[in-house]
């Protein structure tokens, strides 16, 4: 996959002094963040802190009121149509509820980005889709099913397969484990971790889930008070005295999650 790309210099995502105002409400006030190549960055924050809004800026769905968003060193606001299109092909997005096209079966959902390229023949597309299904550990039998017939875990996996269709360098995930039961959640997180390593992906994810944080994240950015108040490894952040961080990281659930993650790493 992005395995042997000539390593580009510089960070993959740069959020530079972003301010977002919606109506009279100021959501972001000077948010800055950098995601380096090959790392998994988790974005945490309270409900309503603007995590999803920031994510939507990064994937180019919305523009900030002030500030710059750079992907692969290119300012999103200054790209013409073709350049923007090429940048879009370099990252994949996994939406919170999968966002599968409800009118298409699983196969066509994953094939859609490949078909949109209009350069591949159907035979090759067929093989590539099967490869992606295999990658996310789904059986071929599921290829003909419609999204309404899939369970939550399967929807996420198909969504993941679709986001990886174009062999992206960057993966953006919105609450990857939302709505999954603990077993599914764990296996999904493991899958993302394995794939991320194998495919040399850079990832940015918004998450509430502590288990996901401890298992997947290389660095964590905390969004609170309309800006990033801290960035660092999970352990570094967990030790900070900020009230939000204290509640998030130092409660009982956090302790349990940390112990479980440590146990898994040493297995």
């Amino acid at each position, binding site marked *: *996959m992005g*395995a*042997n790309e000539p390593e580009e210099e510089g960070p993959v995502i740069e959020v530079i002094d972003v301010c977002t105002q919606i109506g009279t409400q100021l959501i972001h006030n000077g948010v800055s963040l950098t995601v380096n190549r090959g790392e998994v960055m988790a974005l945490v924050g309270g409900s309503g802190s603007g995590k999803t809004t920031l994510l939507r800026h990064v994937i180019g769905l919305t523009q900030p009121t002030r500030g710059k968003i750079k992907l692969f060193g290119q300012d999103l606001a200054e790209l013409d149509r073709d350049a923007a299109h090429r940048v879009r092909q370099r990252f994949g997005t996994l939406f919170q509820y999968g966002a599968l*096209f409800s009118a298409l079966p699983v196969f066509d959902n994953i094939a859609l980005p490949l078909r949109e390229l209009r*350069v591949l*023949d159907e035979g*090759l597309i067929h093989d590539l889709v*099967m490869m992606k299904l295999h990658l996310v550990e789904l059986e*071929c039998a599921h290829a003909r099913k419609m999204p309404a017939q899939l369970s939550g875990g399967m929807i996420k996996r198909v969504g993941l397969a679709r986001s990886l269709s*174009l062999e992206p360098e960057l993966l953006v995930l919105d609450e990857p484990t939302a709505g999954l039961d603990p077993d599914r959640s764990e296996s999904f997180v493991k899958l993302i971790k394995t794939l991320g390593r194998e495919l040399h992906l850079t990832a940015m994810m918004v998450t509430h889930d502590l288990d996901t944080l401890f298992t997947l994240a290389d660095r964590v950015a905390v969004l609170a008070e309309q800006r990033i108040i801290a960035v660092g490894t999970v352990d570094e952040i967990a030790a900070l005295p900020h009230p939000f961080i204290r509640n998030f990281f130092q409660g009982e659930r956090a302790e349990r999650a940390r112990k479980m993650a440590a146990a898994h790493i040493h297995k």
Partner: protein
Amino acid sequence: MAGAVLRHEFAGGGRSVLHLEGEWTLRHFDAGFAHISAHMIELGADPRVDWDLTGITAFDSAAAMAVWRAWGRRRRESARVNPEHEALFARVAAVPPLPHVTKVPDWLRPIVFLGRRVLILFENLASIAVLLGQMIFDSIYLVRHPRDIPWREISANIHKAGTQALPVTAMVGFLIGVVLSYLSALQLKNFGADIYIINILGIGVTREMAPVLAAVLIAGRSGSAMTAHIGVMRVTEEIDAMATMGIPASLRLVLPKVSALAIVTPLLVMWTTAAALLGGMLSANYQLGLSYSFFMETLPKVVPIANLWIGFIKGVMFGVVVAIVACHYGLRIRPNTESLSAGTTGSVVTAISSVIVVDAVFAILTKDIGLDL
């Protein structure tokens, strides 16, 4: 193909080497790829061609799959591949091959298709009958428990289906009245029978045009809105949520819609009739010189009141038909975009068709009423 290079080097004695160089990633495949791919497959079938992939600087699994296919889905031993790219071939090889499904021509397909449609038709009719029956049960229940009458829901539906439809029905009615009057006047002038424009307009509009027109407008407006409303409630599980709270969907969702349309449609028919007659009156005045006072005096004389009642009763029936069809389609909507669009389309089309059928039946039943022949 900028970045991905295919170079065929001829050695002696019929042998040659195919060099793959540059950036072989999905991103670098452009319109020339089809040609490159065909070339690769052609050369892959030739055993005298050796493959050299060491010149590849960037390789992803999509490109690996393309090469794999050219190799006939086997690792070609003689091919020289960089060690870091071997993993990609391992991954590509691990994908289980899907058996190709050959399409068997099914000669019975048209018959099965027709049969299935007929069965679906019967099933739909049965569901509508159930819905109608449930309405009747609910109405009987409400007669005995008047406290449970869903006034707020009925009122909201009356506002949406009725009050908000007044402008559009007025405008459409007025314009149709003008057009009808204009066309009829042209013909009547030939016979010197200008005066009968009032009869034609009066009976035609009151008895047929206004009810059918109003019903079609209501089907398009409120019918589709009701279908989409109930359909989305089904998809977002709101109807289930209501059921768990002991709120019956038929009583609080379907009945208010049906009663509201039953109340509103005849009133809208009256409204449309008035607008159309107004338009006709204006046009007759302009074209034939018929004065407004003459028109308004003569109208009740030549148009028996029975026609007004017929229009009114048709309105009630059309309203009930549109609402029941809309609710029926809404309750069958499944959670995908195709189903929603097909459901709303079906609802409007079926409602309009049913209205026309009911209108025809009514016309036959009342052919001796209201026309002084």
